[in-house]
């Protein structure tokens, strides 16, 4: 049942993604200043937005784990953090490629790139420390706390890189400034949805693995007890 749901979700994600890319590549006109390359934003920005979504889910489930000590919540946290870190990495790499084309450099230390990089480093800390804790309850508790600490840092990072002495050259956030032309809005929203579906399918696969891992752990304990 669960496996079928995962497959269905993955197929749905593929259909939405391919349909959207078809629109993006064949229907939409080129952007006046950038030519064809602006189409990167249809995966670049959805990756960033979905990373934020999954990090937020991870924060909620981390708090729920501390409150209830139910290991399912910890599994959701680690699955979401892993997928979120992957999406942040995707966002950084596609942004870097766009920057090489438009700015002439791979990396510019601009406001958003720096922020995303720090976000990535914060959650890499979580993913690196987690396997180093052997005892399951401790592993779940400590990683929940680390993910809460990491999430609390994000607003501070955003504040720090906006300090008066830090410069920026990133195009303004399209959703806030409203500079995105009307014909781009539909594909943009569907792009976010498509990336969300793909990521959710990945989270489900990862969740399934985590529950199998818990079964392994309990079988091991059972064998030891005899």
């Amino acid at each position: 049942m669960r496996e079928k749901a995962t497959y269905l979700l993955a197929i749905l994600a593929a259909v939405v993604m391919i349909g959207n890319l078809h629109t993006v590549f064949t229907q939409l006109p080129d952007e006046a200043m950038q030519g064809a390359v602006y189409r990167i934003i249809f995966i670049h920005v959805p990756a960033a937005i979905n990373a934020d979504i999954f990090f937020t889910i991870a924060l909620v489930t981390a708090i729920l784990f501390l409150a209830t000590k139910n290991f399912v919540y910890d599994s959701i946290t680690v699955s979401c953090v892993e997928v979120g870190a992957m999406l942040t990495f995707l966002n950084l790499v596609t942004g870097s490629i766009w920057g090489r084309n438009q700015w002439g450099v791979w990396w510019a230390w601009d406001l958003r790139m720096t922020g995303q990089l720090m976000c990535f480093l914060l959650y890499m800390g979580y993913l690196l420390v987690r396997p180093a804790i052997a005892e399951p309850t401790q592993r779940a508790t400590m990683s929940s706390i680390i993910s809460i600490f990491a999430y609390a840092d994000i607003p501070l990072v955003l504040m720090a890189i906006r300090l008066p002495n830090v410069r920026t050259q990133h195009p303004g956030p399209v959703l806030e400034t409203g500079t995105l032309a009307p014909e781009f809005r539909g594909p943009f929203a569907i792009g976010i949805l498509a990336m969300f579906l793909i990521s959710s399918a990945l989270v489900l696969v990862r969740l399934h693995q985590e529950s199998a891992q818990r079964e392994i752990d309990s079988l091991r304990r059972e064998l030891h007890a005899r």
Partner: protein
Amino acid sequence: MDITNLTFLFYGYSAGWIIITLFVLMLVARGRKIDGELARLKSLVEDRER
């Protein structure tokens, strides 16, 4: 479609799909390892019960 900057558009999307594919391959590898381990432990438990 304009040919200007098309190369970098191609690089961008390739990088995106490569990252997702690598992540999926990592998941598959881990899934196989976990499934193998689970099967091994289950047969071990059955052996002990007999």
